[in-house]
């Protein structure tokens, strides 16, 4: 069992359950065993819900025996990023400041998964409050890339990506504010889907940047991402930014064949000309384009001239919203409070509780965000960034008149080594290919497309589509997956050492 659980997909596991070849309990147990064996070295999980997962699995098995399963996915375990609320569980967001806090409620996505009978297996590691691209900013421990332990898994959903890649999870939920699902998916050789903004409820996702955040799946296959999208998406009265017209039933594309005849795929030249793009990554993604052409797609070059401003706009908007969203972490109602003894104790309580319990990257971004919103600077920074955001949206709208889906590299390079990137700006710039989708609110997916020759690290191809066009995007991604040289490749976590 242990050997093939590592490569078992969510959808395939559902089939095995249906056919009675495996029980939910066995499935959960097998995953827990893998976590026990491998996670000390990987660090993908911050906590594992061993007892509740096993007892929920038994309940699911009992339902199935009586023919009362809640859905085809009843009894399937899933792991969730630590910034997503699950009732009765911790919700640290990878931060010390939320130590000791227990969520009294379920995020909408979690409620939907539970309603389908799914089981939360554990909480995955992340950059503190999702701020980072390497998961080195977790306050608890770093996560190793399952393909090479000296490399980062990407971030901020590094724990989710690593757990799926290493076979410690069938699938996982992550969150993507500027690439935090797609970039770690690319670095870990798994599929990562960021849905259209508003397609999936954010209720219960601890906000980083409210107008950019979106929950999505990290999975072994494109089909699994489609299945999970269908499970978690849809309007939610608890989230005013969720939309009524989101794509539904996207896993239906697999029933209709995956023909790409007549599909127009655009390749934005600014992405491929980017000076920081490694030759190896460019080549792998160009190979992907050829594979798509061979399947009947019409590939053409397009232009997104405003993309070069995406990072600048993002590093104003995201920190600004974050500085406000993270103000509630003050040690008053929950989380860690530093007892201040000095006079003016209230002010000191705030300053010390926040100063001591937020990590460096979080403090850096709070300061940046506070600054750009402060009196006299709003117009020069925040308002200007929002206008640049309009330009970016228009850029995409224009390009999507010429093509159905865009193909780009997910990241400029393969996974970097731990502690290799220390300059914040350098780290920020590594998000160059993923950030604009968040600013425009369009969906994106990263699909493995090969490995670097030098280090054998995974490379991801990113597909982008117009708002609510998840179905079209997944059709192209799935069709490509069938041709990808990286499909079905998994790391040997027992031997990897970078």
């Amino acid at each position, binding site marked *: 069992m242990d050997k093939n659980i590592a490569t078992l997909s969510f959808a395939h596991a559902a089939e095995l359950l249906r056919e009675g070849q495996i029980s939910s309990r066995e499935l959960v147990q097998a995953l827990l065993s893998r976590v026990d064996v491998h996670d000390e070295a990987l660090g993908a999980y911050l906590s594992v819900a061993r007892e509740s997962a096993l007892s929920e699995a038994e309940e699911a098995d009992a339902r199935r025996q009586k023919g009362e399963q809640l859905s085809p996915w009843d009894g399937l375990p899933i792991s969730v990023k630590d910034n997503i609320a699950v009732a009765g569980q911790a919700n640290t967001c990878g931060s010390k400041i939320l130590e000791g806090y227990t969520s009294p409620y379920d995020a909408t996505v979690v409620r939907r998964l539970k309603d389908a009978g799914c089981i939360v297996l554990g909480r995955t590691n992340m950059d503190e409050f999702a701020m980072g691209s390497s998961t080195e900013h977790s306050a608890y421990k770093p996560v190793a890339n399952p393909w090479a332990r000296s490399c980062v898994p990407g971030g901020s959903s590094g724990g989710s990506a690593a757990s799926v890649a290493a076979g410690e999870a069938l699938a996982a939920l992550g969150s993507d504010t500027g690439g935090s699902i797609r970039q770690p998916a690319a670095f870990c050789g798994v599929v990562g889907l960021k849905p259209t903004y508003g397609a999936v409820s954010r209720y219960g996702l601890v906000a980083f940047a*409210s107008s950019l955040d979106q929950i999505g799946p990290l999975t072994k296959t494109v089909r699994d991402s489609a299945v999970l999208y269908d499970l978690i998406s849809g309007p939610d009265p608890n989230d005013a930014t969720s939309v009524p017209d989101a794509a539904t039933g996207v896993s239906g594309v697999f029933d209709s064949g995956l023909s790409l005849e007549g599909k127009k795929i655009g390749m934005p030249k600014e992405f491929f000309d980017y000076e920081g793009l490694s030759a190896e990554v460019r080549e792998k993604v160009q190979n992907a384009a050829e594979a798509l052409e061979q399947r009947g797609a019409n590939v053409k070059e397009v232009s997104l001239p405003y993309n070069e401003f995406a990072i600048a706009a993002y590093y104003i908007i995201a920190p600004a919203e974050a500085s*406000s969203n993270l103000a509630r972490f003050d040690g008053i109602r929950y989380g860690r409070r530093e007892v201040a003894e000095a006079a003016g104790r209230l002010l000191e309580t705030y300053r010390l509780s926040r100063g001591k319990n937020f990590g460096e990257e979080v403090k850096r971004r709070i300061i940046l965000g506070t600054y750009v919103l402060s009196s006299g600077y709003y117009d020069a920074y925040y308002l200007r960034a929002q206008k640049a955001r309009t330009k970016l949206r228009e850029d995409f709208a224009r390009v999507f008149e010429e093509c159905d889906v865009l193909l780009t590299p997910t990241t400029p390079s393969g996974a970097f080594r731990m502690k290799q990137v220390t300059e914040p700006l350098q780290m920020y710039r590594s998000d160059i290919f993923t950030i604009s989708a968040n600013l425009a609110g369009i969906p994106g997916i990263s699909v493995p497309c090969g490995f670097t020759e030098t280090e054998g690290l995974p490379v991801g191809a990113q597909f982008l589509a117009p708002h609510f066009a998840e179905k079209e995007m997944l059709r192209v991604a799935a069709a490509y997956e069938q041709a990808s040289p990286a499909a079905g490749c998994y790391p040997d976590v027992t031997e990897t050492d970078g």
Partner: protein
Amino acid sequence: MEYEAVIGLEVHLQVRTASKIFCSCANRFGEEPNTLVCPVCLGYPGVLPAVNKQAITKTIAAGMMCNCEIAGYSKFDRKNYFYPDMPKNYQISQYDLPLCQNGSVRIEGVGFSGDEIPRRHIGVRRIHLEEDVAKSIHVGSYSVIDFNRAGVPLMEIVSEPDMTSPDEAHAYLTELKQMMHYADISDCDMEKGQMRCDVNVSVRAVDNPGFGTKVEIKNLNSFRAVHRALSYEIERQKELLEESAAVEQETRRWNDEEGVTTLMRTKEEAHDYRYFPEPDLMPLQISADMREEIRRNLPESPASRRERFVQEYAITAYDAQVLTGEKALADFFEEAAAASSAPKRVANVIMTEFLGWLGDQGKTVRESPVGPEAIRELVSLVENETISMKIAKDVFSEMMETGKAPGDIVEEKGLQQVTDQSVIESYLQQVVQENPSVVDDYKSGKEKALKYLVGQVMKLSQGKANPQQVNDRLRDMLSQ
């Protein structure tokens, strides 16, 4: 030198709704601490606001009552500051696009001091909607927080600095409160914190075109306190100006026991609220249809009702002011007066007897044991001379006690006025015979003596004789 005051008011009003503004916790006062709370109004990690449509509707209604322009496009913003009563450390409020702007409130009538206030329109700069904060209680070496109030919908109503006297400020607040009651927008109970008021006041020489230095007064817990605090503060500032001393820009606290304002702080700390559009909420587009629907459901304003009462029922402006003070009372009066041949008398009965009785019993108009038709019937019994005014008072007490109809009470107790000439004649005979000396007194010119004799006749008739008739007949009789 002659001085004048410039007064502006900032009023916070809790909107009456079933649930809070961004979550479905009940909007209720007086519950056990921290029992009306949830992850949303406690600002727990991961929660999002879901705005209550009713809070928006009622704020727009408030704007319409104040003759404001209603925004076609409005939005919520975050106001960022750290404070333990503010769960998220930002308040969801409205910054540059409030729901209502540029309105006015009409004031007039008899002021709090008893002086007449000339009719004026006080400008309303803006009304916006935001969330209330929690209640903090200070317990010496520490403070405790009750979050039940956090997230109650709160309107901020900012006036123009248009008022010039404590009476005008008091009248503005009274009018505002009446309008909010009329339209069922807020209960406006200051003791429950549903209505809170900050005052800005400056004093300047009348011939000085510039403004004086503005002082803010806090801790005003009643309209009376506002009036007293303003009177005190205007005097204080005048005295300073007269001594050619400078008025400092400062915030002062009203001390209600001692009747003085005391310094709270001199310099406004440099706030930097870092407002930005609330990304968790979508903007509001208030359509013409929506505005129309809200307007359709608005009640007549107290001001126009006052005017109409004077015209339609021929009552004095003062009576109209009293009778429209509360919507329930105005409705009660109008129902009683509308079908009455003597609306003026109806007004008198309601203002003296009815309100007096309610006051003694500590009851509200809604709790009255009789409806307006009972008052109308009582008045008509007097009008058609079935009973005298004196008997009417007894019937009134009886009907308030028992809830019976006045006609039934009169019937049951046989209280009909005696108008039978022969019966009255026999009472007169008896009284004249029994009081020869008084009769003599009258005949020798003591007008007072007649009053006594009338009283005796009324007594004999157990109050049922018509006093005017008795008076006239006695005069006739004794002049012969």
